[in-house]
């Protein structure tokens, strides 16, 4: 029976000690410990989430860079193509122009030559005509003494001259 009767002294000290431990730990122990454990686990979770997010963002950035790079390469290629096309064009144009100019010059030269030749021929003709006339005059002055045969010959000669002139 002695075992089942609580001893006053022990109850007394038990109440004091337990209350003290409960009060002190309840104030300075448990709230700090439990609070900090919770805070730490929250922070770990948060940090992992953030790290994942950052990784995802980094991967996104890499893809973006790659895309931009590819785009730039394409653009460069296109520009080069365009440039070479333009160069060809310019060269072709220049060539065409040059050819055209040369042709023009040639034509003009030909024309000039033709003109000069015509003029020369005209000149020659007039001179030849004049010469012929003078020659004829001289011939006529000697032989043209009124015979008929002389007159006919003159007419004939004139006709020939006219035909040749026309």
């Amino acid at each position, binding site marked *: 029976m002695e075992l089942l009767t609580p001893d006053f002294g022990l*109850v007394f000290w038990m109440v004091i000690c337990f209350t003290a431990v409960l009060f002190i730990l309840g104030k*300075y122990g448990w709230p700090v410990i*439990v609070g900090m454990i919770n805070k730490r686990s929250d922070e770990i979770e948060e940090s992992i989430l953030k790290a994942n997010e950052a990784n995802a963002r980094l991967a996104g950035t890499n893809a973006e860079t790659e895309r931009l790079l590819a785009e730039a390469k394409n653009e460069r290629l296109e520009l080069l193509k365009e440039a070479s096309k333009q160069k060809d064009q310019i060269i072709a144009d220049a060539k065409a122009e040059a050819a055209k100019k040369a042709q023009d010059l040639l034509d003009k030269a030909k024309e000039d030559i033709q003109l000069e030749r015509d003029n020369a021929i005209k000149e020659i003709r007039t001179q030849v005509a004049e010469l012929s006339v003078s020659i004829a005059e001289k011939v006529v002055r000697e032989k043209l003494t009124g015979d008929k045969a002389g007159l006919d010959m003159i007419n004939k000669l004139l006709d020939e001259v006219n035909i040749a002139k026309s």
Partner: protein
Amino acid sequence: MNLFSKIITILMILFAPLVAQANEHQESEGEGKVDVKELVFGHIGDSYSWHIIGDIAIPLPCIVYGQNGLDVFMSSKLGHGGHYTEYNGYTIAAEGQPNAGKIVEVSTGERPWDISITKNVLFLFISSGLMLWIFLSISKRYKEDYWRKPEGKQAFLEPLIVMIEKDVIEPCVGKNVEKFSPFLLTVFFFIMINNYLGLIPIFGSNLTGNIACTMVLAVFTFLVTNFKGGTKHYWLEMVNPEVPLWLKLPIPLMPLIEIIGMFTKPIALCIRLFANMLAGHVMQLVLIGLIFIFSINVGIGSGAYGVSILSCALVIFMTLLECLVCFIQAYVFTTLSALFIGLAQVEPHEEHK
């Protein structure tokens, strides 16, 4: 194998005092029997001195308040080893008398108000100090570097704290967890530390196997459950439960059951812890005592050796079992306290709002 032999050696060293004590009894009583009952009760009960080994006992201060007012003296003044002397009108009542083993007044034989620092009180102080030191030092570390990985005491205790907090207190208490978790955590670690201290033989305390200790713990649970946790609805349910009228009138059957239940819950807590811890200690002591009973009755011989080996094996088994029980009992006490608190925090059902 190495670890096993180490454990055995440690256990043998730890149990040495009991063996020595038993031997002492054997010698003092000559060819007589070993008083196993006294051995067992001497251990599980309380005493005014801290008996360490053989004749060595540390006297502890006695504080009594009797007819002559307050008196403080060392227990060695009252004699030791079963031969008590008188001091200042006080003595320790002998075996067979009322209040046996307690300080009584010589003139009347009555008990004075006795708040002596007995063996159990000493261990109460030791365990309280240990708890404060352990938890305040780890809380300091949490406060300073909460993000650091736990080390030492902190690493050892954090899983336990988290387990009790998250797996026991939070699901059982439900609402207002932060209001009750300090109490429940204190209860858990207080019981656990004292249980394990009780397992260390030279210390030989049996605080949680003492009804005074478990009663105080149960009273605390009772007070916290009913007065800190009990909602208005809880008290209303107590007096006027939602049951058919004939269960309440003319005989208030249900209210009576509810009110009795309010008291039986903590009483069950108190008795469960007390009986479990007491039984463990008694079992170990009886198994050890068996060795001496056999060696005296049968004589030192092969039979006695056989019994010794068997007893030692059983004691090792019991000690390991006790290691488990120490934790389980602390866990059960905390879980049930948390449940009672959770039950006390009832709110009116939806349809009554």
